[in-house]
C-alpha cells in the first residue's frame, strides 16, 4: 500500500482537533485532519444552545456557531481535512490506517495529535437491574437524535444523573413541551457547572431528587417506569415515564492510544488534547488546549 506523508496527523475534528490543526498549520507544518463525521465540530454540532465562546471570542455563541467559525478558518487554511474518515489504528512506526468510503489509506507522519473526544458512561456499565426495553438513551445520543436527526424521542422523561449534558437536555426538552418527571442524582448536589444548575434546573423548575438512584427499570417493549430509591431512608418510589435519559458523565476516548501503550505510557510522538485528554466543561479551554498541542507538536518536530 502506498503511504502518504504529513508532518502532523490530527485525529478528530472537534473543538480540540480543529484548533490543533490550525495552530500547527499556521506554524508551517503540513497537516492532515481526519474526522469521522461528515462535518467537523464534534459535540458542538449538536449543541443548539448558547454559552459557547465567552472566553475565546468574547461573544455568547451556540455550539453550532462556535464550530462554524472554526470550520471557516479551516477552509481558509492549508490544512487537508478529510471528513467521513475514521482512523482505525496507529502503529509504532508512525503510520496510521484511515478508512473512508471506497478507500483504505496508509498515512505516515512525524507527530500525531489525538483529539478523539469522549464517550458517555452508559447505564449498562453501572449496571441498573431490570429489563432493557426501548426508550433508554444517553443524553448525548438524545441530543444528537433531536438536534441533528430531528427525531422525537418521547413525552414523559426521567433523567438519571445530573451531568452538564443532562441539565442542558432537561431545559431543551421542557422548552419543547415535554415533561421531565424527575432528575435523579445520587450525590448531595447536582453535577456540572453552577451556571447550568441556575439556567437549566432552577430556571425551569426541573424536579431534582438528590441522594437517590434508580434501582430498577420497568417495561417490556418500551420503558414504562423506574423504581427510585432514596439512599438515606431506603424508601422506594415508582415513577412512570416513557423515556429514560442517562447523564452519567463522559469518559475520555483513548482507544487509539491504548492499543499503542507499552507499560502504561504512550510514545513521545503522540499528544492528547481536549476531552480525550481530560473532560472539559467549557469549550474555550478545549480550544486553547488544542492550540497548545498544535504548537508543541511543531516544537517537537522542527
Amino acid at each position, binding site marked *: 500500500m502506498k503511504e502518504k506523508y504529513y508532518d502532523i496527523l490530527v485525529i478528530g475534528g472537534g473543538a480540540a482537533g480543529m484548533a490543533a490543526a490550525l495552530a500547527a498549520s499556521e506554524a508551517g507544518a503540513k497537516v492532515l485532519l481526519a474526522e469521522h463525521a461528515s462535518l467537523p465540530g464534534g459535540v458542538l454540532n449538536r449543541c443548539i444552545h448558547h454559552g459557547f465562546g465567552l472566553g475565546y471570542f468574547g461573544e455568547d455563541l451556540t455550539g453550532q456557531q462556535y464550530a462554524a467559525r472554526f470550520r471557516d478558518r479551516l477552509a481558509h487554511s492549508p490544512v487537508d481535512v478529510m471528513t467521513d474518515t475514521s482512523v482505525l489504528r496507529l502503529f509504532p512506526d508512525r503510520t496510521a490506517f484511515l478508512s473512508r*468510503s471506497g478507500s483504505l489509506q496508509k498515512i505516515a507522519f512525524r507527530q500525531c495529535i489525538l483529539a478523539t473526544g469522549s464517550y*458517555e458512561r452508559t447505564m449498562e456499565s453501572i*449496571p441498573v437491574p431490570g429489563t432493557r*426495553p*426501548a*426508550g433508554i438513551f444517553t443524553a448525548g445520543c438524545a441530543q444528537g437524535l433531536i438536534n441533528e436527526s430531528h427525531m422525537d424521542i418521547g413525552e414523559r422523561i426521567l433523567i438519571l444523573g445530573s451531568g452538564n449534558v443532562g441539565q442542558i437536555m432537561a431545559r431543551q426538552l421542557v422548552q419543547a413541551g415535554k415533561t421531565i418527571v424527575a432528575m435523579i442524582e445520587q450525590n448531595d448536589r447536582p453535577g456540572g457547572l453552577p451556571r447550568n444548575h441556575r439556567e437549566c434546573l432552577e430556571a425551569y423548575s426541573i424536579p431534582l431528587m438528590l441522594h437517590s438512584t434508580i434501582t430498577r427499570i420497568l417495561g417490556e*417493549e418500551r420503558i414504562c417506569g423506574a423504581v427510585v430509591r432514596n439512599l438515606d431512608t431506603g424508601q422506594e418510589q415508582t415513577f412512570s415515564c416513557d423515556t429514560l435519559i442517562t447523564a452519567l458523565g463522559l469518559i475520555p476516548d483513548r482507544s487509539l492510544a491504548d492499543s499503542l501503550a507499552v507499560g502504561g505510557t504512550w510514545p513521545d510522538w503522540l499528544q492528547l488534547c481536549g476531552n480525550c485528554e481530560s473532560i472539559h466543561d467549557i469549550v474555550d479551554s478545549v480550544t486553547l488546549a488544542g492550540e497548545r498541542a498544535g504548537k508543541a507538536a511543531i516544537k517537537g518536530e522542527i
Partner: protein
Amino acid sequence: MEHTDIVIIGAGLLGCFLARALRQYDLSVTVLEKERDVCTGISKANTGIIYPGYDMAPGTLKARLTVSSCRNFPELCRALGVRYANRGSLMVGFGPEAEASIRNKWEKGQRNGVEGLELLSGEECRRREPLLAKGVRIGLFSPDTCVVNPWELGIAAYENARSNGAIFRLSSKVMAIHRIRNRRAGATAEMFPTEQYRAEATAEFYGTEQYRAETPAEHSGTEWPLKFIVETAETSFSCRCVINCAGLAAGDVHEMAAPPSVRIRPTGADYILLEDFPGMTPKMPPDVSTRIHSRMPLRHVIFHEPEQKRKGLTLVPTVDGNLMIGPTEREPFENPTATEAEGIRWLREKCREVVPDLPTEPILRTFGAVRPNPYEVLCENDRWIPSGRKLFDFNIKEEEGFFSLIGIKTPGLTCAAALGEYLTGHIVDFLGGASENPAYDPTRCPEIRVSEMTWEEREQWVQNHPDYGRILCSCRDISEGEVRDAIRRGAVTLDGVKRRTGIFMGRCQGSRCLSDVLLVMAEELGCSPDEIRKDTAGGIL
C-alpha cells in the same frame, strides 16, 4: 389455506436447524415465528458454550448428540461461515465434594467417548490459568470446548435453510393446531387421500360453508392426506407434520394438539459482560478459530464446580474477546429477562472466590436470560400435576406426526444441528420416506467483517465495495456496508442489525452511532427513522 409438507413452529436455533436439515429432502418446509426476526428467544441469551459431553448421563441421546456435535462443530462452522473459538475448558474444584464430582465427570466422559480429557492438580490448573485461586485442588481439562455467539449460529442456519428453499413466515404466531383424524378404523394409506375424507375432515373444523368456499380448488392435486391445520392470525396451513420448537412456549403449543405431558417452568439467569480488554479488538488474524487475545486475562472457559451441588460460576472468553460471567440461577421476578441486583452481586462474589485477581470492572453490560425447565405432568382427579420424575434426557414427544421439543436447555445450542438431523430421520420415517433434494447445499457464504480482514484484503474489498470503507461503529470497527448487508439479509430491527453485525455491542452501547445506523436502516428499508423498532413486535425506538 396454504399447503406445505411440514410446519415448524418457532425460529430459534432448533427450528432453524431443523428446517435446514429437512431441506436435504424434497419436502416443503414452512417455519412460523411469532416475532419479527429469528433467534430472539432463548437462542439470543445463553452462555454460548459448545460442550464436550462429559456432563451428560451415559447412554442418553443427550450424551450421544453432545459428543458428536462438539466433535463436528468446527466443520459445521466452516460450512455455515460462522465465527467460533476453540478455547478449551477447565472445570475446577475447591473441596472434597467437588473433587469427587469432577472425577465422576471424568469417568462419565470416558464412557461417553469424550477425547482428550485430563485430570489436573491444582498447581497444574494455575499453571495453565494463572488467575485461578490458590484453593483450587483439582481440574478437568477438555481441549475441545468451543464458544460461539449463539445468535450468529442460529441466523446462519436460518439463512442456509432459506437458501435451500425453506419458507420462513415471521410475525406469524401460531394460535391453534387442528388434527384431522381418519375416522374410518383400519384405513390404509391408499384410502387416505379421498376427496370425501378431506371434505368431512375439513368440514368438521371449519363448517361446511367455509369448506365449500375455499378447500376443493386448493386441495385438488395434493396427493397426500390432510392431517393438520395450523392457524395463525392471518392464515392457516395444512400439512402432514407439525414440529413444535416454540422454546419457552413449547409446553403450551404442545397442548394445542396433544394431551399435556411435559410443561415448562421458567427460571431466570443473570450475566455480566466485561468491557473489551484494551488493544484487543481490531485486527485479529483471519482464522478466528485460533484467535486468543494476548491481553485477555483468561484463555479457557472456566467452570467452577461448587461443593454441595450449589450453583457454580462459569467464565467465558467470548468470540468477540469479552469476558462473560454467569449465569446465576434464580426464580423469575416479574419479568424473567430482567437482571437482578442480587444476581450481579453473587457473580462478583463468586469471581472473588474463583479468580480473586480478575478485575470485574469496567462492565460493558449485564443481561438476563430465561431457562425453560421441563417437568412432567400426570392427570390426577382431573388435574394435571407434576409427576416428580426426573427428566435427564432431551424431551422429544411424538404423536402421529406431531413432534414437540419441550424444555431443551443446555446443551441445546451444542446439539441444535444434531437434533435437527435426528428429528429429520424420524419425520422422514413417519412420512414413509422422502426423496433427496439434489440441490441441497449445506454451505453459506460468511458475511464480511472488515475488522477481521488483513489490511491488504480490506484495502481491496473497500475499493470494490465503497460502503465498507465508511465506519459507523468506532468501538468495534463496523462499517456501513456490514449494516446494509445485515438488513438485506433480513434484519428489520435495531437488535436484528446488532445481532448480525455486532454493532451497539461495544462500550458506547450504541450511543455514538445510533442516529447514523437509523438513517442507513431507514434508507435501506424504505421507511422513516421513527418507524424503526428496537426489537420484537411492539417496541418503538
